[in-house]
């Protein structure tokens, strides 16, 4: 209980110092944002030569999960966002617009409050379109602010059915999982599975997907046993154990895995060690697609053993997507994973909508966005929105992990056509 006596002068000075530092910080902050992010009109007169026309700078905000549970996806998205802005600027200038788009990328740590804080602060800087956040819980929390302040939010990855609300400012460039569940159910049934264990994340994505899947699978005549696992853990060996015993006790012939990339990779690595799990079929959702962990020899061999197949949103033989993948690898050194195409198109749509609206009014941009999306075909296919602001049309493809010369890689091996899975090639001889 040491109370410092006679130090009141010191503490007053200290408080003063803190306040001065805070004020200085504020000043620096405002100055910096004014210095580095030039105001909308910036006339430039270079010395001598021809007068160059002033370029209007428009900022698009991004709130991405650069840390936290979704950071493995978020880091790749950051590169996709940068590439998208570059490509957007090239195209826009080719059309003769004298405009330059600039990305303001913030990290929201996969946390709800940070996402809200990011969106609010971006909006208060004058940004009217924000790409992200990634998680449905985050989108829900920013919704009321976005609707009140007319900020257009485009999420490339949130698939919660409870966000399919019409007439709001939330748009999602990714199709509902209801469609994908139908395809996954058809795939599993067609491949001979009649009793499956649905091993899924216990969050809104996993639960909704599992529900849809169970319904569709039951309609086809199969039986699905629900098995949720807690998301966000660092390792899932214990869960995989329980899965193995469940498979045995229920005498299931397949496992349906609904996961993201880090937990999916973790689970498959552990499943590869289990004899029980290596003797049933495995069907995956789109989450683990593209994850580097699935290209390791252990998982690759496991995939061949269980004839692992997965579904994912895909417009079949979309040359734009192939080009996009190549560009991303060449220019930024990363492989395109899940939702990268949705993100890329979200940025494109945002840019063109802002230009079409011609003003900084949120409402105008929203209406323009709907119109632009109607006529746009991008790397994720046709981007038209439905009445709730979500991607209306989505095709799905089937993927597998095949052995190539250099190891293992992902390959799209089939499509969903008229209620049936049609294989374009035989993945596992």
């Amino acid at each position, binding site marked *: 209980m040491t109370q410092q006596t006679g130090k009141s002068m010191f503490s007053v000075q200290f408080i003063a110092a803190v306040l001065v530092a805070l004020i200085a910080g504020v000043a620096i902050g405002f100055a910096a944002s004014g210095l580095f992010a030039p105001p909308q009109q910036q006339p430039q007169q270079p010395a001598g030569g021809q007068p160059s026309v002033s370029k209007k700078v428009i900022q698009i905000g991004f709130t991405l999960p650069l840390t*936290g549970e979704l950071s*493995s996806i978020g880091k790749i998205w950051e590169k996709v966002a940068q590439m998208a802005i570059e490509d957007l600027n090239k195209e826009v200038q080719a059309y003769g617009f004298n405009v330059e788009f600039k990305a303001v990328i913030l990290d929201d740590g996969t946390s709800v409050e940070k996402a809200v804080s990011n969106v609010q602060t971006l909006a208060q800087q004058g940004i009217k379109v924000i790409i992200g956040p990634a998680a449905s819980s985050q989108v829900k929390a920013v919704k009321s602010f976005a609707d009140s302040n007319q900020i257009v939010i485009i999420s490339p990855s949130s698939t919660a059915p409870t966000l399919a609300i019409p007439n709001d400012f939330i748009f999602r460039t990714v199709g509902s999982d209801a469609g994908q569940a139908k395809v996954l159910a058809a795939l599993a049934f067609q491949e001979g599975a009649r009793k499956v264990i649905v091993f899924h994340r*216990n969050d809104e994505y996993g639960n909704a997907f599992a529900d849809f899947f169970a319904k569709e699978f039951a309609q086809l005549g199969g039986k699905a046993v629900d098995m949720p696992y*807690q998301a966000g853990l*660092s*390792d899932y060996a*214990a869960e995989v154990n*329980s899965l193995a015993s469940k498979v045995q006790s229920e005498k299931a012939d397949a496992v349906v895995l609904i996961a993201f990339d880090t937990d999916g990779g973790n689970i498959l690595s552990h499943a590869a060690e289990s004899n029980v799990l290596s003797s049933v079929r495995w069907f995956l959702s789109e989450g683990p697609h593209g994850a*580097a962990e699935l290209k390791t020899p252990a998982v690759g061999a496991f995939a061949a053993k269980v004839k692992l197949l997965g579904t994912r949103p895909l417009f079949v033989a979309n040359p734009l997507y192939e080009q996009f993948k190549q560009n991303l690898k060449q220019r930024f*050194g990363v492989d395109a994973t899940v939702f990268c195409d949705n993100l890329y198109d979200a940025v494109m749509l945002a840019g063109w909508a802002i230009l079409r609206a011609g003003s900084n009014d949120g409402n105008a941009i929203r209406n323009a966005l709907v119109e632009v999306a109607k006529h746009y075909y991008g790397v994720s296919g046709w981007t038209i929105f439905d009445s709730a602001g979500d991607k209306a049309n989505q095709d799905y493809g089937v993927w597998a992990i095949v052995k190539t010369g250099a190891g293992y890689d992902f390959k799209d091996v089939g499509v969903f056509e008229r209620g049936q899975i049609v294989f374009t090639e035989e993945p596992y001889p």
Partner: protein
Amino acid sequence: MLPIDQNTILNFLFYSFFYLLFAVPLTLSYRTTKVINFAHANFITYGAYVAVFLNGLLGNKSLLLASLLAFLVSGTLAIVSYFFVFKPLEKRGASMSLIMISSMGLWIMYNYLLYMLADIAHFFSGVNFVSYGRILYTDVPEITIGSLRLSSGFIAVCATAVGMSLFFYIFLNKTSLGKAMRAVADNPVLAEISGIQRDKVITFTWLITGGVVGVGGAIWTSFSGTVTPTTGDAMILQVFTIAFIGGLVSLLRTGIGAFVIALIENVGISLLNAWFGVPTSFRTFLTFVALLVILIAFPPLGAAGGLPFRYRKKRGGAK
């Protein structure tokens, strides 16, 4: 039929050994330094990432090298934290809650620092370090006993955990430095009077804490399917739970706690799921219930627990 197969038992042992490696040093550090250290999560993650960087940037496949380096890096991290933060705060008479919050600040700092390092490494090498797969090491053998296949990760962690336990036992009971450590833990004032240099002992304690945990993190990369910068953070609650079961003072109790929690997490949840339909997503729920039950039913010794004497119900008239 018991839904337990050999894999379940193997995983139970795996987890027990890992928890031993992570939790026992935590108990040791608290006991000696009285600091509840949140940056402990970072010791784990940095140890794992030493192995990851060595493998991703240099193609290293030697677990021995990875472990040694991890020991050094995490140990240094611990000593740096002590030297620059904990020690000055102690000197100024800061309370334990304060030092705990400062360790929380360090936790945040180290976390973001690691993200920056992973980014920089990616910038120069093109390899994605934010999510890294399991590493197959070539210098630890795989042993197959009959139909039981013990992977190299298992051998490594088993050997290390057993080795660590033996080391601690011998060190703390037989060597003078170890006894000095116990003396500082039990009665710092008396220890200083009898000539033990508290500073040196505590520095050494931090080195061992960080080091052992770092080695555990390095071996973790051979077991886990994915390693991310949040690996340590996602585990830290469980590790603290185990240390708390040990009352934060007893290494033996912590060790028992490690096995108990690993048992509940692997075998327990399997049984509950098979017999009672408890969803597997209740795994961490069970861990915390176990903690609460143990703490309330058996308040740890040395923590001055229990209601003040006056307010306990009088038993049979005895006062």
